[in-house]
């Protein structure tokens, strides 16, 4: 995939109108403010942004990375024609098995039921987005040429199967896993996928604060322009090499204590899990 293609995918995926369900999630911000952690609006939002982004990066990015690896590996092998038709199915089954294992680990590590619920609904939405929004239109008159069609088929087949597993509740379809799957299937490089995932987390927190009326849309834009970028960059630098340790290609002496996912913000966890107890609320998480 050349740079233009990748840039175009980035543009599509960063669209705030994308039906990913993130507009109903505040990732604990609404509850945080309700519990009296608001000092002044702008500084509170920046503070929450830093703590929430730091915690999310440390717990979710290893899963984005590993899910991306699984799909990327299958995609390159298919592209290079390195797989016989008979083996294709076997490779795909192995990929699905790995993804389900990642999904299961994320599920058992996400012990806050509100976050678990939000993560699942957004993950499923991403899979639907791929099958309904990124597949080729069926009317062949719209597009000409069949280039990249096979590869497309291999990926859409994988995602279709993964979606079916989620529907049958054989897997959970958590957001970080589905994000890694989706971006790898679309051919987005890992580092860009990680960057965009953290950026979108930060941006959806800012839109939540606008919806909560704690900040105006211009101030939110200002923060996006000047504050979010260094925050995302520093969290990416800190967490981009983290792994789950589940995949075979992890280092032999993988030290989970140093390189594995972890919960780094117990306060955020408690407040987010109290979300449903709010007397009135506008978000689902």
């Amino acid at each position, binding site marked *: 995939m050349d740079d233009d293609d990748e840039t175009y995918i980035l543009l599509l995926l960063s669209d705030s109108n994308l039906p990913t369900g993130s507009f109903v999630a505040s990732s604990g911000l609404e509850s945080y403010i309700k519990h009296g952690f608001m000092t002044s609006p702008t500084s509170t939002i920046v503070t929450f942004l*830093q703590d929430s982004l*730091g915690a999310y990066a440390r717990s979710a990015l290893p899963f984005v990375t590993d899910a991306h690896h699984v799909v990327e590996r299958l995609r390159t092998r298919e592209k290079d024609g390195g797989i016989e038709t008979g083996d294709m199915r076997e490779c795909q089954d192995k990929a699905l098995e790995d993804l389900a294992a990642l999904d299961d*680990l994320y599920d058992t590590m996400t012990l806050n039921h509100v976050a678990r619920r939000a993560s699942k609904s957004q993950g499923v939405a991403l899979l639907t987005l791929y099958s309904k929004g990124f597949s080729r239109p069926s009317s062949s008159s719209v597009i000409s040429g069949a280039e990249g069609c096979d590869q497309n088929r291999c990926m859409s087949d994988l995602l279709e199967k993964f979606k079916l597993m989620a529907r049958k509740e054989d897997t959970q379809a958590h957001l970080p896993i589905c994000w890694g799957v989706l971006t790898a299937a679309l051919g987005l490089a890992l580092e860009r996928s990680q960057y965009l995932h953290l950026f979108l987390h930060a941006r959806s927190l800012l839109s939540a604060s606008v919806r909560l009326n704690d900040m105006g849309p211009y101030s939110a834009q200002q923060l996006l322009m000047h*504050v979010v970028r260094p925050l995302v960059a520093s969290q990416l630098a800190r967490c981009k090499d983290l792994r789950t340790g589940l995949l075979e290609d992890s280092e032999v002496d993988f030290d989970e*204590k140093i390189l594995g996912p972890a919960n780094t913000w117990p*306060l955020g966890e*408690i407040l987010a899990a109290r979300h449903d107890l709010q007397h009135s609320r506008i978000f689902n998480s």
Partner: protein
Amino acid sequence: MQPLHSPIPRLRSGGGRISLTSYGTSAVFSELASTYPLKVLSPRIVARGLAVVYLLTYGGGLVGGDQIELSVKADSKTVLVLLSQGSTKVFKIRPGRRLASPGVSRHSLTPPTSIISPLVTYPATRQNMTFTIAAEGALFLLPDPVTCFRSASYNQSQTFYLSKSASLVVLDWLTSGRMSMGEEWAFSRYYSANEVWVEGKRIAKDIMLLDDQQPDPIAKILSRTLADRLAPYSCYAMVMLFGPLVQSTIQDIAAQFDQIAIFKTKRPAEMVWSLSPMTSESGAIVRVAGKETESVRTWLGQALLGLQETVGIDVYRKAFP
């Protein structure tokens, strides 16, 4: 033929083994062993199928480089309660060297100057514990909180292997440090992993990592310290509950939780807590944060009162005086 008494594998320094077996209607220790600096003590308890073990360390604490390896087994229909005596203090280095520590020369009583230099990175303290609980057995792990002193680095991993009808309560908590010395969240690292497996399937894995993220040259924004992120609370607790013996306790806590209605407040409360069901139906996770360790202890003592039915009032009072 096997010798009648197969040699018990030697315990290395800091190792320990506890094995509780049911014998008729009572529970007896088929093994209760530990080596320096770990010490396990079991007071006499007059109750059927129940045993209490205190996990202690010499000097009431752990130092950099200490490694505790404990394996615990509870047989079917036994109830094992594990307690500590006072909070587990984690020092960066021991005030006054430990003579029996491996690798310490008995001739040099004063530490070499390099050890007290702030530039040296100290070895981390590690505590690994494995627990196996047989069908209809129960393990209640109810220690005092861990207190990490300035610059201490602590790593704890606890893994629980349960049979289907086994019950489990794990309390894992920490305080912000030696507040009397002005230490609040001044340790360098606290890592605690709790993983629960039931019949070969992992049902919960909680990993808490508290460390000060190094200020990053890329981030032009003032970085948030650990104290910033955890304020205004100075004690954090996590309780995992699983199995038939704790169902009524979970229900009690859930009823209490559901009654809470949150209205917007101006400042954070003295204490805040949450309850989340595990994906596996018969388990739950409770988290508590409080400004005072004692108020968190009081709250826990109330919330877990249902366990008294299993362990009796006397044992329960040892855990929550």
